[in-house]
């Protein structure tokens, strides 16, 4: 399988701020690639460069074999791009927005009606087609934006944090749509801050400080994590977190939802020491167990190591 999207040492600075710094990435055609990283890591700038909305300072990239600098207008025929911020016309109705983009992409009259009906159904917006886009909820707006970007049946779809501000049900719907698109052969490049979404990608790239420092399947990234994660439930996680951070054999302690997670090199070896230390300090816990690291655990640790370096 060939690479649909390839970038070679892409770089972009805004004044003194380096947004993207020698970024390399290759995405196989027909897969979902997730760009995962903290805010300000360079996700949006990378995506905008790949869509030819910003010119890179250095480096180059190809989308579907077209150069993002030389063939920028050719690329635009093949891609759909959903910006992070809602960017359709709020003072146009759903239908008017769809027809506008159908006209701009020159979708033939014959296919158009069928395509619009299909997209409305697909995104569950049929009943709202007369509404102004500004009147829609966050989730509906995102589905409309996606629908408008699919009107010309793009081969490459770029989505910049598409599920921000979207409720869990709509999030699941949106991902269902993405899987269907993948089945149809669309290459999807998505950025997200949500780890559960990262796990749904075929491959993920972890980005920090404008550079992708790890790229693999989610399973391999988790599998490559050598340390043990200990999950602790207690009545006072905050106090315990501070306590564990003071112990030298605990590499890290952080909160994930209701749980307190500890990172240790070998749980079997350290279990008794933890129990003993808790007892000596008069601290109570409700349960403690080794767990399979989640993507989030791995991500938090990798990013932390990156920043320490």
């Amino acid at each position: 399988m060939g690479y649909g999207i390839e970038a070679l040492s892409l770089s972009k600075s805004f004044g003194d701020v380096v947004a993207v710094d020698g970024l390399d990435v290759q995405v196989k055609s027909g897969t979902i690639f997730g760009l995962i990283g903290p805010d300000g890591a360079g996700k949006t700038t990378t995506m905008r460069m790949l869509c030819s909305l910003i010119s890179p300072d250095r480096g180059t990239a190809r989308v579907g074999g077209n150069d993002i600098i030389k063939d920028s207008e050719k690329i635009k025929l093949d891609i759909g791009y959903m910006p992070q911020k809602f960017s359709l016309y709020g003072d146009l109705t759903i239908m008017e927005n769809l027809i506008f983009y159908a006209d701009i992409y020159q979708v033939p009259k014959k296919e158009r009606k069928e395509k619009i009906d299909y997209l409305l159904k697909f995104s569950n917006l049929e009943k709202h087609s007369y509404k102004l886009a500004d009147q829609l909820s966050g989730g509906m707006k995102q589905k409309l934006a996606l629908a408008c970007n699919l009107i010309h049946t793009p081969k490459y779809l770029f989505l910049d944090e598409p599920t921000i501000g979207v409720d869990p049900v709509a999030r699941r719907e949106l991902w269902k749509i993405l899987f269907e698109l993948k089945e149809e052969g669309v290459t999807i490049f998505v950025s997200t801050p949500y780890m559960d979404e990262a796990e749904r990608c075929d491959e993920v790239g972890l980005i920090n400080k404008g550079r992708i420092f790890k790229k693999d399947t989610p399973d391999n990234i988790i599998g490559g994590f050598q340390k043990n994660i200990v999950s602790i439930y207690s009545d006072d996680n905050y106090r315990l977190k501070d306590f564990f951070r003071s112990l030298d054999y605990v590499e890290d302690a952080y909160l994930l939802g209701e749980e307190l997670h500890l990172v240790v090199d070998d749980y079997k070896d350290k279990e008794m020491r933890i129990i003993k230390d808790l007892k000596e300090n008069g601290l109570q816990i409700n349960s403690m167990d080794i767990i399979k690291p989640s993507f989030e655990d791995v991500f938090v640790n990798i990013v932390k190591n990156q920043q320490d370096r």
Partner: protein
Amino acid sequence: MNFNVKRVLAVIRKEFYQIKRDKRTIAIILLMPIMELLLFGYAASTSVDHISTVVFNNDMGRESQELLDGFTNSQYFDIDYIAYSMDDVHHYIDDGYSKAGIVIPPEFSENIKSGKTAQIQLVVDGSDPTSAQTILSSAGGVAQAMSVEIIGDNAIKTMPQPLDLRSRVWYNPDMSSINFNVPGLIGVILQTVTLMLTSFSIVREREKGTMEQLIVTPISKMELMVGKIIPYVIIGFIDIILALALSVFWFKVPVAGSIGLLLFFSVIFLFSALGVGLLISTISKSQLQAMQLSMFMIMPNILLSGYMFPREAMPKVIQTISNIFPLTYFIKVLRGIILKGNGFSSLKNEFIILVIFGIAVLAMATFKFKKKIY
């Protein structure tokens, strides 16, 4: 660069949907021309008539009464106050009751009867030079007419005047300032409305973020620019018809030339005016900046285009500057057609300049526009 009419039509349709749903824009389109025309048409009138006048008549003869009738009949003077002393006259003018005072000396009738030169005194409030000028010339006219009558009556034709200047005013024989102002005003209105509307058109999309979605599509710069301009050409055309109708039917300004030619020139002018707006919108970073820039453009346009002050009276430098405003030429065209009844052949130069200007600014706006977000 590819150019597809269907894409342009899509942009035009979209712009109209947006205009239709924006009450502020509709207000600018419909109310601004009417309001400006009424405001400027009435308030900026420099014609002065029915001047409140105070009379101090020391002469009780028939001749002085005839003279005063002459003043009243001219419609320029309304004799509102009768004074009984010079102090009275001062009082009426000082306190602003009257703008002019007529003082007739006691021997007035006597002098006329005996064929001597009779004198009258005209006191004018000169604090407003424009009205003072009108009062002076109107009074001169009345006195002149009266003299001719007296000379005719006495049938003294022994002394022919060495020089007989007979002036005739062409094109606007009543010298009515409304007839002169309205054509220029139409130009100013068209310039203001179109500049205000288009200067937002691109930068608004940038600020709202809709530009980001639009420029990942294959739309070309040319298609976008033309699509952005055509709706406002149509709107500008509606506005000029509105302004013309108001001028002709409300202000009763006679149109000497061809309305068709006038509309043709309006469209030519619209392209340049809109091009300037689009250029502002392309180079502005925010809507606020676009607003400031267009305000910055509107003022010199109004002041220097010849709408307010005659360009002949301006210093050379300013005249040269005013040559770069398309409005300067358009006002010339408007006055030429409406007042003088000029045909196309007299306006060829203006036509060429407006066309070149239009093409130049539109090309510049298209060139300056980048299909990038920064």
